[in-house]
């Protein structure tokens, strides 16, 4: 999957083609779910709720996506962040009613920031780097499997992985400094 292919599939989905949407779902579901887990600091139930809302919202608003403003993955992460914040605010309001004032549950606030930054950094990477990092760390493929999927040699995959890490580091640092 390269940038051109993704843009083409997104255009097809914006034209209303269902199979294009399924393709996009397959490409991004696991990573977005991982991002939601990072957002919710590992709370599986909340992460699943956020992930579900992310894809339902994205399916309904895909015609609003503008590729010149960022990658599709970054757009999905933005939706996930907004949905998570909305759910968090709702949960805080509910807990404020149930407990005494001032005893707000601080567990979820500010948690999971490094993991979130990792996902946002990945979303900003060029597709070939993001893909090789996700193949290794998300899908947990071996170098041999990655080479078979990519159709290249193991040395080429190692080189690509090294370059992906090199691109990852400065983006991660800049995001952490912004935060």
């Amino acid at each position, binding site marked *: 999957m390269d940038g051109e292919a993704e843009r083409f599939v997104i255009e097809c*989905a914006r034209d*209303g083609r269902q199979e294009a949407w399924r393709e996009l779902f397959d490409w991004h579901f*696991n990573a977005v779910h991982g991002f939601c887990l*990072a957002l919710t600091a590992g709370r599986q139930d909340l992460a699943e709720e956020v*992930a579900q809302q992310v*894809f*339902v919202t994205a*399916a309904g608003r895909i015609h609003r996506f503008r590729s010149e403003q960022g990658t599709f993955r970054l757009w999905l992460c933005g939706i996930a962040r907004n949905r998570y914040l909305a759910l968090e605010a709702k949960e805080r309001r509910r807990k404020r009613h149930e407990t005494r004032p001032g005893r707000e549950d601080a567990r979820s606030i500010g948690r999971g920031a490094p993991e979130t930054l990792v996902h946002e950094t990945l979303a900003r990477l060029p597709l070939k780097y993001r893909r090789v990092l996700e193949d*290794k760390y998300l899908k947990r493929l071996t170098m041999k499997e990655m080479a078979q999927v990519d159709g290249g040699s193991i040395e080429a995959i190692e080189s690509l992985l090294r370059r992906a890490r090199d691109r*990852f580091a400065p983006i991660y640092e800049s995001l952490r400094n912004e935060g």
Partner: protein
Amino acid sequence: MKSRDIDSLLQDSFSGDPPTAAFRARVLRDSTAAFQRARWARVRWHWGVAGAAAILLMGVSFLVGRLTVPRSPIGGVAPAAQSASTAHEVAVSDDLIAWLDAARLFKQLGMEDRMARAIERAGKLGRHHSTSAGHAPGRVVAAIDARSVEEDKNPVGLAILPRLYEPIRSVDGIMASSLGGHNDASESD
């Protein structure tokens, strides 16, 4: 950042349990349904916009069409009346012409009494029409079709009748022309 730090960071970030197949299928189903709903909503919206634009276009076209038609001035003469008055013509009823034709036919057949009755009826219609139209009594406009005149075999009528519409003349004159010099006043009296 060192490569090892990045490696451990990425490993920690993806260390959670992967989503179950059931959850994945449920999200795919729900999001696909939302995708379809949004698609139909956009289609409906586009059709609505197109319909509204068509209605607006038709309304504007209708108004422009109405505005481009010249209106007659208030109190002025209507175009139809104007053309009629300039041609010195007044429409007469079909009944009058029918009775005149009948009288002509009766004359050709030699049925004098029936011809006289037809002329009498035509005379009454002609006087009634001229009175109701505001003209002087006994004067109407002959509106005899040129074709019927030409079909007439009567040489006297052909000599007298005009080719198209006759100018104003008396009912008696019209009848006399139509019947070849026959005067209904003398007959009816």
